[in-house]
């Protein structure tokens, strides 16, 4: 007992800044949850969900080095699980007006948390079925298989009329509006990823990314380790997908085109393949940035009626800004670094040093 207290004490002593930071973040969310309007709330919710999915994608792509493109498909499974099991039973007849819902599902309604976790579990099972053959191979097979899978799952959902309502989609999903669902889940998943990456499993992931043969020679079980990473990633993505469905309140197969996956590829490349904090930062930048640039779509942006200010311009400018970032930060904003206190301290020192050097050199020039 004394021992645990001691270790907790030393933990607090060494990580007090992190603990304080976490508390500040939690208070911040609490205040934001009370204060902000539903527009900002929606953007923040979406950012948090993108963080979850991008982070889980980074786990397999960035940390383990296995290129998976199945994020849209995994999200679809999580989203549909939540949709099917949380829509109130009374509304189902009107939603499934083309063909009635399959009788074995029609009367099952689960609480949101249970449906969310079930979505994660189902996604993991499906991921196991894909991973089992693909992860035994080396090379790009996983990318091809997962990309194919995510298209297949969309077509399956389009055609299973009595379960997913086909192309009509499901609406009237009870929505979440509180920030706690999305941010709470995001924080749990961020901490879980952080602990995982700094554990021996995480080091095994990274060793596979750097060199599979060397990792194998060191005694890392390639298949088992890749599978662990892939399944954890799929589980988190399924959860993210479930939250996505509950945020939007409707799902249909067209939402889960493979282009959705590229959103997350964009986020992890921008943030840095192999950086948790980079992924978080870039999820927020991408989601909020697209919305912040919306004024470019409006015709009277600067009081002048310029013909170039029409819908679509913000995407042009956004892409341009992304290119600029990638030009100057070739490994993404954070590379493989994490935003730790040491990292901030170093950056601060180096910037300070540069300015003092500059000041010194200009003084020198004056003489």
């Amino acid at each position, binding site marked *: 007992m004394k021992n645990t207290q001691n270790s907790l004490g030393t933990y607090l002593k060494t990580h007090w800044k992190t603990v304080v930071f976490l508390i500040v973040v939690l208070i911040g969310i609490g205040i934001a949850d009370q204060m902000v*309007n*539903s*527009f*900002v709330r*929606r*953007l923040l919710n*979406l950012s948090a969900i993108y963080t979850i999915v991008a982070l889980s994608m980074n786990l397999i792509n960035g940390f383990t080095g296995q290129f998976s493109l199945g994020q849209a498909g995994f999200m679809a499974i999580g989203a549909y699980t939540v949709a099917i099991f949380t829509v109130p039973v009374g*509304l189902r007849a*009107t*939603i499934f*007006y*083309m063909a009635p819902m399959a009788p074995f599902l029609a009367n099952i309604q689960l609480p949101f948390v249970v449906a969310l976790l079930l979505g994660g579990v189902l996604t993991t099972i499906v991921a196991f079925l894909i991973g089992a053959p693909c992860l035994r191979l080396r090379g790009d097979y996983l990318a091809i298989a997962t990309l194919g899978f995510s298209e297949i799952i969309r*077509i399956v959902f*389009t*055609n299973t009329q009595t379960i997913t309502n*086909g*192309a*009509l*989609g499901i*609406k*009237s999903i009870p*929505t979440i*509006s509180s920030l706690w669902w999305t941010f709470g889940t995001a924080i749990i998943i961020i901490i879980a990823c952080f602990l995982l990456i700094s554990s021996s499993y995480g080091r095994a992931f990274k060793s596979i990314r750097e060199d599979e043969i060397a990792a194998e020679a060191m005694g890392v079980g390639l298949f088992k380790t890749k599978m662990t990473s892939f399944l954890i990633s799929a589980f988190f993505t399924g959860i993210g997908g479930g939250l*996505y469905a509950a*945020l*939007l*309140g*409707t799902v*249909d*197969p*067209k*939402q889960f085109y493979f282009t959705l996956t590229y959103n997350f590829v964009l986020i992890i490349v921008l943030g840095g393949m192999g950086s948790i904090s980079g992924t978080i930062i870039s999820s927020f930048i991408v989601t*909020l*940035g697209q*919305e*912040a*640039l*919306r*004024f*470019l*779509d*409006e015709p009277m*942006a600067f009081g002048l009626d310029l013909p170039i200010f029409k*819908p*679509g311009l913000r*995407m042009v*400018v956004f892409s341009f*800004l992304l290119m*600029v970032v990638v030009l*100057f930060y070739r490994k993404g904003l954070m590379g493989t670094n994490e935003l730790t206190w040491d990292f901030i301290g170093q950056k601060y020192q180096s910037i300070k040093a540069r300015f003092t050097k500059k000041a010194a050199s200009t003084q020198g020039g004056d003489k």
Partner: protein
Amino acid sequence: MKKALSLLLCLALVATMTAGCSGSSSKSDSDVIKVGVFEPLTGANASGGELELEGVQLANKARPEVLGKKVELVTADNKSDKAEATTAAARLIEKDKVCAILGSWGSSLSMAAGDLVKSNKVPAIALSATNPQVTLGNDYYFRVCFLDPFQGTVMANYAAKTLGAKKVAIVQEVSNDYSVGLAKFFTDAFTKLTGDSSAIVATGNYNTGDQDFNGILTNIKATNPDVIFAPGNYTESALLIKQARALGITCPIIGGDTWETNEFITVGGADVEGAVMSTFFDDTNPPTEAGKTMVTAYKAEYPDRANVPAVTALGYDGYMLLLDAIERAGSADPQAIRDALAQTKDFEGATGMITINENGDAEKDGAIIKVVKDGKFTYLDNVTITK
């Protein structure tokens, strides 16, 4: 130098973003009434959204004021994407504080915004979204177009009565909610009309983007139907008709309102001659005085266009109906507008008389049937259904 440049660019990025946040909310709102227009202006459905927006803008030009206040249109692009659609709608409601929303092209995009307009109590009018679920169970969503069940019934009547068909084959675009819904309601109505439960002799499914329909068509040819009903996207439908004719299928091929685009004729060429579709509006024969005014205004605004697209006419109607409701409500309060909208009776729209029923749908009793003749969409018939 490079570092300085990168720093400069980062600053530019931050500056543009903050400019975006603060720029647009500084006008005084008391003497304008803000109306949100929520359309896909980029992405896959951009052409549809653009046409509706033109209709709304045309109407705004024709009637720029209500209750002595100027009406300001605030457009928000939803990128043909559902997640984007919800943020765009939330932005219109919260940031721009619009009193009502018009749009969106595409039923699923409208449905995505449904919960938001309901929980924020801001009325919305769907212009051409025909899926019944858009207004179902949502007191704040209305619409000015007819619904899939109605359109399916119209085409079933046309096939059974005018064409005298006994056996029909259906080809549906299975990934498109619009096509699936229409096929279902057509089937229901047609089997009821003919009293023959096996009147639908074959059903073929294809996906959006498919190019080759020979497999489906060979099956259909074997059943020798009197008519083929093939609602769906215009490109795929035009290709389908081309391939059907190449296979020697000569029976009439009929479809829904999505066919009425120029691409349908450019892709289909001579093969789509005689293709028949139901639609909302015919500019050579407007049903009302308002319709005539609208066509004249459209021809003056866009002199180089051949005809008035039906969704543009619906956009015009949506705006005019909203202004009428604001006038009847006597204020721009969203709740008052909603109540006035719900009580709409015999409003004279460009596409016909509009009465809003208890579901928030426009009750329309007629649809236009058009046929492709000499490379043009030509008025063929006006089908009226008595319920």
